[in-house]
């Protein structure tokens, strides 16, 4: 742990110097959204100050520069997740839009009445609702693989639910509510054995572990920039080129066309076929800057450091009487969801906030997970590479104090 340059990293994040209610900020709501390093902030300021114009349009200097930067960000993403080609990297508003894109294009083309879409019981609403909407439109059926009390997928049950009717498997790589990291290699292998495409929702996994889409052999991988130390409003759909080629466009408009007449329109090639209209240029560049920043630190180093943080936090949490951890999977990312005996998570959230500690209290956009564990909500401390053991000590002392005051 001593070798991880956490103090140097902290110095790069200006917001970490903020005081909240006159206390130093302890930001533990990273699973909701991460803070941004100066390098990302500067990249956006630089874009708007020196290199901004519309992309793929003009012959003038600024448009060429902006296009280079925007496409440069796409290349960085390609390398970051080890995609074969930039044609497989589609910019979206976030993971949610990426899933909706797949549902509305791949889904509408390939999924018919009576077909099945298989998800798990630990999905975020964004990997439930787009499929429910598709099922309503097409008459397809949504199947849900169950989880156990540790918050792990019951793999044998998942396998049983794969049938000849299954046309897509869409599962979360790492659960935002529980921290569970799913056995995605086994999931993909089981689906591939029946030639079923697999979408991985990587929104939560992407800042915590190295992702290699070719090694995984997933068909789609989606994530959001804002959980990867990049701006909000930008995200990525990775798709295998052959699948993307076969899919119809998502939205119509400028940039996604090659030739338009009133009789007929010829669509543009990948990736532009799925990027109608002027894209989120500056935030895509910001995402590229975030990837540069993370690559320099190394995703494996980040994963190792965060694992130590989680172990430390878990050990401390288990010493607190009346605290129950929700989500105790053997394979877990840096998320500590918990409930306290007779103290509602919302009270926990307000009380910790008065100490400068930001945690999430609520259902974490995963109401079915709350129902399964029979809790209305949980409090969730989620860690990032800039958090420290000292901050975990502050959190645990706060929890002990609020238990005392509630009596």
């Amino acid at each position, binding site marked *: 742990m001593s070798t991880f340059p956490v103090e140097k990293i902290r110095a790069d994040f200006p917001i970490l110097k903020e005081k909240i209610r006159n206390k130093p900020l302890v930001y533990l709501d990273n699973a909701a959204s991460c803070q941004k390093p100066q390098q990302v902030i500067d990249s956006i300021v630089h874009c708007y100050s020196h290199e901004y114009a519309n992309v793929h349009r003009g012959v003038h200097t600024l448009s060429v520069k902006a296009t280079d930067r925007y496409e440069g960000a796409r290349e960085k993403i390609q390398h970051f997740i080890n995609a074969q080609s930039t044609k497989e990297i589609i910019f979206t508003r976030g993971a949610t839009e990426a899933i909706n894109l797949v549902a509305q294009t791949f889904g509408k083309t390939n999924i018919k009445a009576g077909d099945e879409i298989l998800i798990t019981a630990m999905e975020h609403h964004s990997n439930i609702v787009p499929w429910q909407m598709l099922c309503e439109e097409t008459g397809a059926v949504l199947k849900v693989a169950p989880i156990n009390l540790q918050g792990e997928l019951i793999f044998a049950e998942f396998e049983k639910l794969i049938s000849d009717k299954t046309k897509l498997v869409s599962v979360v790589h790492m659960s935002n509510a529980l921290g569970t990291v799913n056995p995605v290699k086994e999931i993909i292998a089981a689906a591939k054995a029946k030639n079923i495409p697999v979408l991985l929702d990587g929104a939560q996994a992407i800042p915590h572990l190295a992702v290699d889409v070719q090694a995984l052999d997933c068909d789609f991988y989606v994530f959001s920039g804002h959980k990867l130390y990049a701006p909000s409003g930008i995200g990525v759909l990775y798709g295998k080129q052959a699948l993307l080629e076969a899919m119809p466009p998502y939205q119509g408009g400028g940039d996604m066309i090659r030739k338009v007449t009133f009789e007929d329109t010829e669509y543009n090639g990948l990736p532009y076929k799925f990027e109608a209209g002027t894209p989120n240029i500056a935030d895509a560049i910001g995402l590229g800057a975030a990837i540069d920043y993370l690559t320099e630190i190394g995703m494996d180093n980040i994963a190792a450091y965060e694992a130590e943080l989680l172990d430390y936090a878990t050990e401390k949490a288990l010493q607190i009487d009346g605290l129950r951890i929700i989500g105790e999977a053997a394979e877990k990312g840096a998320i500590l969801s918990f409930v306290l005996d007779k103290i*509602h998570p*919302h*009270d926990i959230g*307000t*009380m910790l906030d008065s100490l400068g500690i930001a945690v999430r209290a*609520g259902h974490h956009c995963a109401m079915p997970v*709350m129902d399964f564990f029979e*809790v209305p909500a949980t409090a969730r401390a989620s860690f990032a590479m800039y958090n420290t053991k000292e901050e975990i000590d502050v959190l645990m002392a706060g929890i002990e104090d609020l238990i005392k*005051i509630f*009596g």
Partner: protein
Amino acid sequence: MFDDLRDLYQEVIFDHNRNPRNFYVMEEADRKVEGFNPLCGDRLTLFLKMDGDKIVDASFQGSGCAISTASVSLMTDIVKGLTEAEAEALFTKFHEMTTGKEEEINLEAVGKLAVLAGVREYPARVKCATLAWHTLDAALKNEQASISTE
């Protein structure tokens, strides 16, 4: 410890949270309405016994945070004996206390409910305090469907 929170979490609130008043299923209720705050998962069922337009008894079941539990506990106490119009008027005063302009606040008009005035400073928690009253409002209007603060 938690000095900043004393206005929000007064001892009366802890007391009602630990020992909620009128916390039972009223079998002979004339009105029964469910209230739900999807943001935090607070859920309550409000029971009313009516005599004409007068509330003769009130009780509740459910689970929620300390603020919402104290609020519904206090409310079921205070509305007993009130007419529908009086209860609605109290709701208006309560609403003004939690969300209205500073000059509209009349702490005397709300009596014991004044202990909840602290939520004004915590916009994220106002809905916790008002869920009980929105549910009562629905019950008085005889809306049987569940109500939601979202």
